[in-house]
């Protein structure tokens, strides 16, 4: 096979590309044993995506200075509760952060 890679830093690229490979979205294999876990992953990933989008939106508004002190407190409390809830749910389903890395296609690009 004619080979095609040119770089002066093979070691560094090998290392970094391994990291990317590990972060690759895993396919959810829906077989009877793990269909529940697979569904849980999908649902939690979507919930987490929405949570992160809301957080990001809140940050943009803080950046723009368009929130009152009271709003900052209220939004902050809500986001905090959501974050804690998310951690709880992950624990209940025995899922780690890396496992919620499903490829959401164009939805994922919203982040």
């Amino acid at each position, binding site marked *: *096979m*004619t080979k*095609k*890679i*040119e*770089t*002066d*830093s093979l070691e*560094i*690229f090998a290392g*970094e*590309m391994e*990291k*990317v490979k590990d*972060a690759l*979205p895993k*396919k*959810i294999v*829906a077989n009877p044993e793990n269909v529940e876990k*697979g569904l849980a992953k*999908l649902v939690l990933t979507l919930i987490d995506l929405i949570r992160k989008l809301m*957080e*990001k939106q*809140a*940050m943009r508004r*803080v*950046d723009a200075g368009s929130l009152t*002190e009271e709003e*900052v*407190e*209220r*939004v*902050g*409390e*809500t*986001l*905090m509760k959501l974050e804690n809830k998310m951690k709880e749910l992950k624990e209940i389903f025995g899922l780690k952060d890396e496992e919620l890395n*499903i*490829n*959401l*296609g*164009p*939805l*994922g690009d919203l982040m």
Partner: protein
Amino acid sequence: MNLYAYAIIDSTGGVEESIRGLLGAPVYTIPYRDIGIVVSDLKAQAQIKNEESVLKHEEVVEALMDRFTVLPMKSYTIFDKKEELLLKVKEHYEDFTENLDRVHNKHEFGIKIIWAGNVIRERIALAHKNENAPAGPGQPGAKFMKEKFEKYKIDKEFEEEADRCIAIVDGFLNRYVSEKKLEKLKTDNLLLSAVYLVDKEKRDDFKKAFKELKGSGGDLKYMISGPWPAYNFITLSRSGDGKSAATKGAQL
């Protein structure tokens, strides 16, 4: 006997007899109008879920690259009947001819650039730390928001820095490129993972520009790969299984 498909080409035949595909099967072309689909026969129970088959797939596709315009198939595209295959080709005929025209005489190059992302991030974080007043006892919601906001600011600046660097890359390469797809910061250190569709005639200029880019300073590491057939530049107006492109991404 199944049919394993490797690529769509802009020809109805003329594939060299010496090209061998998966499990050593001879590769040949099934014509459809003015295009062809390059296949090899595959036994129904054949074991091909392995690295060897995938590499073979790529080998076949590359063997075609020099003589034809190639739309490489995603691996493991298999038909059990020739009629099914032809039906699919017919369904996508317009897509295929459009793509063949678009990538004619062009090949894909991949460029990856690594920067000292974690160092840069630390530098930014340090600069911000010096700015912020220490968080006193405040209300919990506001405290949460403050912490999040500090992270947000650092992320934002980090990304802006990345954008600046990538703009420089674009500055060097853009004029030799027909199309490109960029992925910014796949990891903190992988500043850029990009693919470029480059006209054969502009290839030397492109490579020269890349060399100049490399010499332009900054603590960056570079990798270039290619030429590849245009894997990343295929657009189908409708995916073969009737789903729209938007749902294709959410894999279950």
